[in-house]
């Protein structure tokens, strides 16, 4: 039982903070980065590749670094602290994670090698209009003819779908189940837009578009998609924790400096007690995120699914509490695009809805509430 980083992990955190944190130390820099497409800093993306961050989760033979979940969590947390718009979570952890889990050795080397080197951006085209979260596809269908495959249907919203060089697309298979396919970004009909937190998403329309099966053709990979989604949930929780910590810090700094009625705001107990409750939410979330990250390292998919839901539920509750209170305690300034805290709240909202918000997770957990006795995190 150990909740602390070792020396190498501390060094990694400091290095990421030195690169990503320093790049966005001034919030204006982030505003400029998201003002124009692709919505992030391509130069920083290249430098992240040079530092080895983009290959962190992948095996060395695939061009990666072979680091563990704690290290990936560290990167996500630092990204969250400055709400960096680079698509590490959706491109590396999620889309790259799927290629790593399902691809043939050749596909892994080619796709993950280019991703790790910063030469290629990946996107996972999975959500379909009108459907909730889950590991399966319905509206986009795969067809095989003469040994080649094609896809038809609409995926939306696809995070960073317009910028992506390669799309990893989920599709309903002719024989049932869900398969994954690689599609060259330029082969799809794409229209991109900005989301409320400055990140990018796209509508991706496929119309008999040529696609390469990822891994064994025609194989149902629903459970692999579910597991990679669970890992991504835990990493999104790390990213959200970083954002929550800074949102609270920014709020307490503001309470200490802003004056009204001739005194600083921290003289009003109605405000300081609410900040104390935000701290409680932050610490409970922190504990849960560390735990879930360590469960990823154990590699048991069932335990991971449970831990991912639990962490995502806590992050949803804690993130909304801290985010909403952060704006309220700042007052009007918290509503402005110019001031950072509102963007933190927007980003927390995006992370909450990327792979299933609190209520969705609670439904998963509540369905099995009588299937176990008291929970034991040390079992």
């Amino acid at each position, binding site marked *: 039982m150990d909740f602390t980083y*070792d020396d190498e992990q501390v060094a990694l955190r400091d290095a990421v903070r030195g690169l990503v944190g320093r790049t966005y130390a001034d919030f204006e820099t982030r505003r400029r980065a998201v003002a124009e497409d692709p919505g992030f800093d391509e130069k920083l993306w290249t430098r992240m590749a040079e530092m080895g961050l983009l290959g962190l989760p992948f095996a060395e033979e695939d061009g990666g670094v072979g680091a563990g979940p704690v290290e990936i969590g560290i990167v996500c947390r630092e990204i969250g602290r400055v709400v960096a718009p680079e698509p590490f979570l959706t491109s590396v952890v999620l889309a790259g994670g799927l290629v790593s889990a399902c691809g043939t050795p050749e596909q892994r080397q080619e796709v993950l090698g280019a991703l790790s080197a910063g030469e290629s951006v990946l996107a996972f085209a999975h959500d379909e209009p009108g459907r909730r979260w889950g590991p399966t596809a319905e509206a986009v269908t795969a067809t095989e003819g003469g040994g080649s495959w094609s896809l038809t249907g609409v995926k939306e919203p696809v995070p960073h779908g317009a910028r992506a060089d390669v799309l990893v697309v989920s599709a309903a298979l002719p024989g049932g189940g869900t398969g994954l396919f690689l599609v060259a970004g330029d082969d799809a009909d794409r229209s991109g837009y900005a989301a409320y937190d400055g990140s990018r998403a796209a509508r991706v329309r496929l119309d008999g578009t040529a696609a390469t099966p990822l891994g064994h053709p025609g194989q149902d990979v629903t459970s692999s998609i579910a597991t990679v989604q669970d890992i991504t949930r835990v990493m999104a929780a790390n990213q959200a924790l970083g954002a929550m910590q800074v949102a609270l810090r920014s709020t307490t700094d503001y309470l200490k400096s802003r004056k009204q009625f001739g005194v600083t705001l921290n003289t009003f107990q109605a405000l300081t007690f609410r900040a104390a409750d935000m701290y409680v939410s932050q610490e*409970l979330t922190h504990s849960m995120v560390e*735990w879930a990250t360590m469960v990823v390292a154990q590699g048991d998919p069932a335990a991971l699914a449970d831990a991912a839901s639990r962490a995502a539920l806590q992050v949803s509750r804690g993130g909304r509490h801290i985010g909403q209170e952060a704006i309220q305690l700042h007052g009007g300034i918290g509503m402005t695009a110019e001031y950072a805290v509102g963007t933190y709240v927007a980003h927390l909202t995006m992370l909450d809805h990327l792979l299933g918000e609190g209520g969705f997770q609670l439904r998963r957990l*509540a369905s099995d509430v009588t299937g176990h006795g*008291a929970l034991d*995190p040390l079992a």
Partner: protein
Amino acid sequence: MQLELSEEDEAFRAQMREFFTTQVPEEIRTAVIEGRELTKEQMVRSAQILNDAGLAVPHWPEEHGGRGWSDLERHLWFEEMQAAGVPAPLAFNASMIGPVLAHFGTEEQKREFLPRTASLEIWWSQGFSEPDAGSDLASLRTSAVRDGDDWVVNGQKTWTTLGQHGDWIFTLVRTDPEVKKQAGISMLLIDMTSPGVEVRPIQLIDGGHEVNEVWFTDVRVPARNLVGELNGGWTIAKFLLGNERVGVAPVGATKRTLAHAKELAADVVAEDPLLRARIAELENELLALELTALRVAAHSTGGEPHPASSVLKLKGSELQQAVSELVVDLAGPGSLASGAGDDSDLEGWARRATPVYLNLRKASIYGGSNEVQRQIISRTILGL
């Protein structure tokens, strides 16, 4: 970062579980698990079994029966104890006056009191709160005036938990009314059989008799029963209350109550998705709290508690209350039958649900009210 316990800690945990589930009589543990009130004899019997095995006061200095355990070992000891339904050692003895005497007491006081405090041969009561000194404890007015070799004590204490069982009471008294209120307080050890001590029960909203008023009328206390320095009582009180917050989040007991309730009300839970959602949400919050307790236990260094420790009392009491509230709802209309006897057709847990719920409103008031905890967090952690 590592999730698993070390081999040694795992073995320690198993040893604790083995002891608590086999050495403490089942009738006592069942009474705890079913939420029934324990008799004084049951409390003393359980304490003596623990004490004989060296498990009653592991956190005391080693020369007085402590074990020199790590914070994580103490955490595991406490959690396994609660999970098994073993009554926790009486806080007034084990967490309050014991550590105070070990730290501030004279050699004579240590010799006379500590062994019998550990074994619960002496049942201690706490004489702190007064009608006009609650959260603002330093306003206390009970006075002690020196007369020859004695102090003469007059005044009234209140909220004295289980004072009806008390043999001795450690009491904060005003020994100098002329100085700043914190500077004129001392601590006296008072034999509750002394002439002039009167214990009067306070009836509570749960229908039970848990707390008392204790009146002192010209009670003579030998001068040797002063603890620490004359007028140094506030320092001792702060030391004692600092210890009180450790272990004040009864995570294990709350988890056990929730798991037990799920089983007892399985039929109701099976047909009501909203109840299942409430249970799942509470289980998740309890998990987050337990993990926070582990983080605190694994990383409190040099006696300084991890900053997150202040979260434990605040959230721990809220969840304890929320689970008791859920149990009343699970009991449904049967929860009305709190006055029914054992010939009732309703199950005991359902009949006891509401008194427990009402009783636990205390949890966010004692041990430093939750508003005091928020004050601590906002001032000392957030710097507000």
